[in-house]
């Protein structure tokens, strides 16, 4: 028998207090009808390769009844060169493309293709409370660049349990993309030497396209995804989250600018073929995150496991530690490790004369690889609701440069185009 029937309510009370002091009110208080604006400028630079400038703006307006509208706008300006999939060769290589562009790569160097593009994207989220414990979010996205157009939408429901310690989330989304490579999509596994340049001459009969450069005339890609999530408050300091995502792609999944080298028995390049990927992909991801609030600092841990029917399995570990600097802002070091297996149809090259596989790609992003990111962010509160932050990170990606399949002269070359990238991000958030 108990000495007293008085219940200890401290833990439950602490959680309720946490919700009122650090919960939604913190994000929206004090005034209701304000715009909260986050702006950021991201600079991503791969050594000797791609540079990306990405200004982004995110505005959130919260209405009196808790309804929020978020508008997201991003512009990416990309320029530089990206590996085209071909292996290094002992002779200078020249490439042509169906649009009539030609480029040349020096001997022994990585085979890259230069590009210059700008992408603009706009998204809107609309969240409203359905009742005391459930919320609905509707979102829409549209983005466009020279050879790519995408439109999508999603619907997410989330529900809290009565004590607000558990939140269930369920959602679905879709997107429809159109890829319109300049000069039309190349023949899958077609030889590059068989392509007739169409830019210079009066060769107008391109067959199916028939000259109408309508935005809908390109190759189509369909994406659908489903998300199931669970967020659990463990105690006033700890929170954990588990998400499962299923992603389905169908349609044109090739990268029209990627090539595979066709090499002879000595490893010498004799020609190139365009890649061909399956026209379907089923991907799954499990994501687990854990946030722990120390008296001042905060630790974020997360792990993601991804697997798909292209044979790719990946693991991502991420840790961030937010260190409060006693009122002088915070410092947040981060570390991320990524590792993936190669796709079943990944090839470093194709052998001349051998039967063509059903699918093949030499895109380094489908190869076995490891990536490590190390970075730090410094944030400083500005005024009552604003924050200024700067983040700098360094990403290094490595893969198998000397695979067993390498033959002849290819054994001398590093066949994996490693990647070193620097990321600098400046953000400012404020309320209007």
């Amino acid at each position, binding site marked *: 028998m108990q000495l007293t029937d008085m219940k200890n309510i401290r833990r439950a*009370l*602490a959680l309720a207090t946490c*919700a009122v002091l650090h919960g939604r009110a913190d994000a929206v208080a004090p005034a209701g009808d304000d715009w909260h604006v986050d702006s950021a400028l991201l600079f991503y630079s791969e050594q000797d390769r791609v540079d990306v400038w990405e200004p982004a703006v995110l505005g959130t307006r*919260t209405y009196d009844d808790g309804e929020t509208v978020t508008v997201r706008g991003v512009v990416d300006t990309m320029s530089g060169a990206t590996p085209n999939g071909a292996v290094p060769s002992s002779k200078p290589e020249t490439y042509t493309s169906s649009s009539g562009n030609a480029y040349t790569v020096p001997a022994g160097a990585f085979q890259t293709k230069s590009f210059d593009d700008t992408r603009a994207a706009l998204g809107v989220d609309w969240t409203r409370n359905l009742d005391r414990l459930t919320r609905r979010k509707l979102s829409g996205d549209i983005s466009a660049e020279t050879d790519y157009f995408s439109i999508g939408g999603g619907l997410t429901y989330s529900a809290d349990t009565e004590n607000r310690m558990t939140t269930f989330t369920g959602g679905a989304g879709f997107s429809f993309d159109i890829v319109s490579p300049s000069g039309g999509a190349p023949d899958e596994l077609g030889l590059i030497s068989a392509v007739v340049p169409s830019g210079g001459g009066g060769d107008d009969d391109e067959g199916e396209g028939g000259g109408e450069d309508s935005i809908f005339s390109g190759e189509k890609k369909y994406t659908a995804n489903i998300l199931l999530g669970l967020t659990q408050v463990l105690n006033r300091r700890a929170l954990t989250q588990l998400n499962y995502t299923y992603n389905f792609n169908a349609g044109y999944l090739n990268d029209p600018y990627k090539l595979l080298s066709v090499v002879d028995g000595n490893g010498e390049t004799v020609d190139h073929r365009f890649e061909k990927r399956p026209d379907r992909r089923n991907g799954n991801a499990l994501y687990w995150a854990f946030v722990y609030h120390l008296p001042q600092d905060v630790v974020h841990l997360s792990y993601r496991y991804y697997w798909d029917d292209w044979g790719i399995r990946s693991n991502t570990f991420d840790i961030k530690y937010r260190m409060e600097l006693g009122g002088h802002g915070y410092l947040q070091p981060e570390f991320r490790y990524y590792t993936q297996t190669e796709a079943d149809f990944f090839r470093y090259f194709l052998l001349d004369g051998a039967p063509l596989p059903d699918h093949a790609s030499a895109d380094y992003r489908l190869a076995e690889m490891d990536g490590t990111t190390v970075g730090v962010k410094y944030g400083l509160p500005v005024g*009552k609701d604003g924050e200024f932050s700067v983040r700098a990170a360094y990403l290094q990606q490595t893969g198998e440069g000397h695979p067993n399949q390498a033959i002849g002269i290819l054994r001398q070359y590093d066949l994996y185009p490693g990647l070193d990238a620097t990321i600098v991000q400046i953000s400012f958030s404020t309320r209007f």
Partner: protein
Amino acid sequence: MGADAHEPTLERCDGYWLGRFSAMASPNEVLMDVDSRADAEALLRIAVDETRRIERKFSRYRDDNIVHRINHAGGERILVDAETADLLDFAERCHALSEGRFDITSGVLRRVWRFDGSDRIPEQQRIEATLRFVGWNRVRWARPYLTLQPGMEIDLGGLGKEYAVDRSAALMARFRAAGLLVNYGGDLYVTGTRRDGTPWTVGIDDPAATGRGSLGRIRLERGGLTTSGDARRFLLRDGVRYGHILDPMTGWPVAGAPRSVTVVADTCMEAGVLSTIAMLQGSRAEEFLQAQQVPYWLG
């Protein structure tokens, strides 16, 4: 507007700045262990702005805020903003955790009980008539919509001051986390030790000898501290003292409650709810506090 709009004041004390202002019908203090006057002024401004915002928004003595709209809805459903909804959720949790004792609708009992030190005890009939307008269980709360029965009222006064303390402290700490002590009419929160590593010292007033006696001193490194009590608000009849803590279930003052309960907890809101519920337990206040395993003092 003039006369009663007290401007905040700031003075240098023994190694810290003391800011004072009045709001929520009480004298409020902020102790700031910072060097420059400019920093102290900025911190005090944050505290004053946030406290006055909360007072404007949740005071039941105003006719231009959400509490007024709720209390004068005449049975209509009222849509509330997210912050109010969070506080209502909190109040609902407190009602459940205290098994109905902590109730933000119990304020209407003040219409019949006037704690002016006299011996005027209301008639049971009036108390029962008023009790029909008391009880969170009679309220329909379906976030973000609140519906009160006509005649019912809510009063967030029992939470508002502690909420203002915690909010002010959190906002000030974003600007400068160094040793801050927020004390709004005796409900307080400490963000951390002073810069030399020593904790702030808080004296606990003895309700039997207000301003003269002390129940003790506590060195608070971080956390909230509140005192609930009836030192000056009671009725006395036939030698029985009726404190101003009313039981929303009987409509009568809780019997056998200590004169004051002081509790230390992680936040001011938690301390405030625990000290209030302890008072509502009456003669079992100490038993309740022991079960909570929190530091406490009874007056």
